């Protein structure tokens, strides 16, 4: 049993290091070679854990070989477009200038319903609103809406738009996050005033966010699990 434990710990850390070296991409964004390596790694890693008769070297050697080969191949792909196209494929245009390419859909075995669902995820709810839809190498579909369907940028309409920066989570489940509070540049007094304004106490705050401009939202826990929002603007100054 000790052997199984030690092997599991060893293989676990080996896989963590391997996946870390391979990169941070999510499963849905894996390239073909990365996907193959990931599947193979999971199978290989289990062998010496499940069967004590199998020496660890029977997993170690293929895991290190696959990992190195994957990193080397990825590097070579960045140096050669031909190799990149050969191994990773090319993006395919499913909708070009508003015209759906049924041939490309069939070639990539994508059903119309699937395309519509992916378009909805991109915020385009009508196929007539899409100017381009491109099937990317990692299998995702990116969609460009028609210019007439895109909201005009503030600078084009002459409206003065405020840069609001990033909204940070200052309080999560009643706990004040000192680090994000410091990063926000607001003081505890301002946070306290905002909570008082919302008519609650810190412990009852489910989530409080504030952006760089001071626009805050407080989500208050209520009985029955519902959460009600409250918004306002933090006062600058005071303690920091």
């Amino acid at each position, binding site marked *: 049993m000790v052997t199984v434990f030690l092997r599991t710990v060893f293989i676990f850390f080996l896989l963590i290091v391997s996946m870390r070296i391979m990169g941070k991409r999510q499963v849905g964004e894996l390239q073909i070679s990365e996907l193959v390596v990931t599947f193979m790694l999971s199978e290989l890693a289990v062998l010496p854990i499940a069967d004590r008769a199998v*020496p660890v070297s029977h997993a170690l*050697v293929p895991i*290190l070989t696959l990992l190195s080969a994957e990193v*080397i191949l990825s590097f070579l792909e960045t140096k050669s477009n031909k190799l990149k196209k050969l191994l990773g494929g090319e993006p395919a245009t499913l909708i070009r200038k508003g015209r759906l390419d049924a041939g490309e859909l069939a070639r990539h075995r994508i059903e119309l319903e699937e395309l519509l669902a992916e378009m909805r995820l991109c915020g385009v709810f009508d196929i007539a609103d899409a100017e381009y839809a491109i099937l990317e190498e990692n299998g995702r579909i990116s969609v460009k809406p028609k210019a007439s369907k895109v909201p005009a940028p503030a600078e084009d309409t002459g409206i003065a738009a405020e840069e609001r920066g990033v909204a940070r989570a200052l309080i999560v489940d009643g706990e004040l996050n000192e680090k994000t509070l410091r990063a926000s540049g607001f003081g505890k007094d301002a946070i306290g005033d905002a909570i008082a304004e919302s008519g609650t106490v810190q412990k009852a705050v489910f989530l409080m966010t504030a952006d760089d401009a001071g626009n805050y939202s407080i989500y208050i826990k209520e009985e029955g699990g519902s959460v009600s929002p409250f918004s306002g603007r933090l006062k600058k100054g005071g303690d920091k």
Partner: protein
Amino acid sequence: MKAFIASLAVLLAVAAAVTVSAVYADRSAGELLDLIESIPETPDGAVNSIGAVRKKWEGAKGVLALFVSRTESDRTDAAISAVLAAAKAGDRGGYAVALSALRDSVLSLRRGAGSPFASG
């Protein structure tokens, strides 16, 4: 670039380790087979020769266990014990069968851990 160089180094290190282990397994299995070939075909006076095989096997087993499955090494252990027992008992039939099984198990070890290009 650093990851590429590190990966290339790891790949070369793995290739080197695999080559060294295959050469070691080939050599050890070859020496074992030579010793097995020197064992008399009959149990008379074979105990010393089998003792030499066992001594060689015990020396190589620790390293070979890193590359071959435990099933394989246990099989060789059992085969050596069976030959020795048959030799001591003077069982001619059992001795011949056990000797053949020992030869097969070492050949199997060589196939499992050695180079695929090695003869035998």
